[in-house]
């Protein structure tokens, strides 16, 4: 978008930075802080921002142009810690005056399209991560390899479904269903040589709401009442979706196998 007025460009830049941070899973107070800092660096008469996990409102006020507001609705949230860090650095540089506005805007667009790891690598590491989690919960060597295979499979499923922009709880539910069924299938093939518990825990560990939970606590500390509560509920819902998926699939497996 090409706007003639410098204050509109600055506002666009600040809100865009906030938008990318929010989509990358930053805490609400950090987004608010970043936008406020970028805008305050320009010495406006007053600066106000209001950020919730799904939207941004920012207003600047100055005698030279009276008032200017931008509202931005944020969708498709995921966790991209690299983007948060880069934008943090960018806003710091901008506020200190080390980088002019047009260069900063250009850099912001670069950051938006950056990808530190390819999706194949992410899927592979989902498997490795799950496999080592199963060792932490006292799995043996067989469990380790089984968890790796199931982990890669679930990583792939989760990755593919997430890019279809279905509601995240459903994606997690389907993923944990897949975990449960894969575990039951391998249990029929291998019997008591494998342990169900470490495998299931290893596989759900990467899906557990660790990020949502940590952000909920950090937002609650940062005096963000709305975001703290909504992210807290989000992590609770994720946990319930996972538990439901595992429960349903293991239950069906047990009934079919007559293990109960």
């Amino acid at each position: 978008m090409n706007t003639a007025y410098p204050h509109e460009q600055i506002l666009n830049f600040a809100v865009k930075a906030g938008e990318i941070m929010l989509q990358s899973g930053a805490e609400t107070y950090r987004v608010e802080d970043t936008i406020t800092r970028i805008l305050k660096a320009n010495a406006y008469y007053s600066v106000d921002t209001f950020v919730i996990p799904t939207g941004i409102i920012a207003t600047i006020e100055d005698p030279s142009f009276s008032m200017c507001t931008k509202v931005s609705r944020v969708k498709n949230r995921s966790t991209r810690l690299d983007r948060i860090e880069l934008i943090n650095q960018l806003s710091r540089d901008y506020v200190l005056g080390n980088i002019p506005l047009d260069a900063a805007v250009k850099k912001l667009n670069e950051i938006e399209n950056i990808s530190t790891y390819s999706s194949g690598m992410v899927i592979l590491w989902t498997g490795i991560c799950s496999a080592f989690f199963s060792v932490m919960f006292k799995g043996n060597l067989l469990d380790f390899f089984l968890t790796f295979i199931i982990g890669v499979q679930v990583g792939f499923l989760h990755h593919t479904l997430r890019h279809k922009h279905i509601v995240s709880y459903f994606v997690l539910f389907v993923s944990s269903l897949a975990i449960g069924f894969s575990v039951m299938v391998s249990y029929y093939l291998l019997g008591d040589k494998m342990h169900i518990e470490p495998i299931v825990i290893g596989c759900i560990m990467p899906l557990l709401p660790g990020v949502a939970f940590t952000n909920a606590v950090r937002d609650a500390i940062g005096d963000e009442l709305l975001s703290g509560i909504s992210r807290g509920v989000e992590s609770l819902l994720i946990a319930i979706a996972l538990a439901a998926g595992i429960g349903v699939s293991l239950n069906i497996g047990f009934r079919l196998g007559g293990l109960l």
Partner: protein
Amino acid sequence: MILSILSAFISTIGFSILFHVQKKHLLTCGVVGAIGWSIYLLGESKGFSTVLSTFLASLLVTELSYMLAKRLKTPITVFLIAGIIPLVPGLALYRTMYSLLISDYTIALEYAILTFEIAGVIASAIVIISVFPLIWRKPTLKR
């Protein structure tokens, strides 16, 4: 035990890759996760309860992440999430579900309470480490 700590190290790194942490921070994240998990194991081996061990581990992890975040000028979440991940109550959550499956509601309730206790304790550890230093902050009129 060493095997367990080593796997905590690797799985924390894996976890950080899932969340696209920059490459230069991966090793640090792994170390934070491994330290948290070893404190937890140490507590368990001394006969502390799961909840207390988790509390001590998350206290240390939070303090460590604060120090690292300050030194490396990085958002604290990068290290905090990595450190907290091994401590997240996955085991208790699974056992709750499993007990519900075999219709053992007493045990299920026990593990459900344990899940919430662990989550609450991690939260309070983060709060304690983050908020207590503010007591000694000089009072300011404007934010």
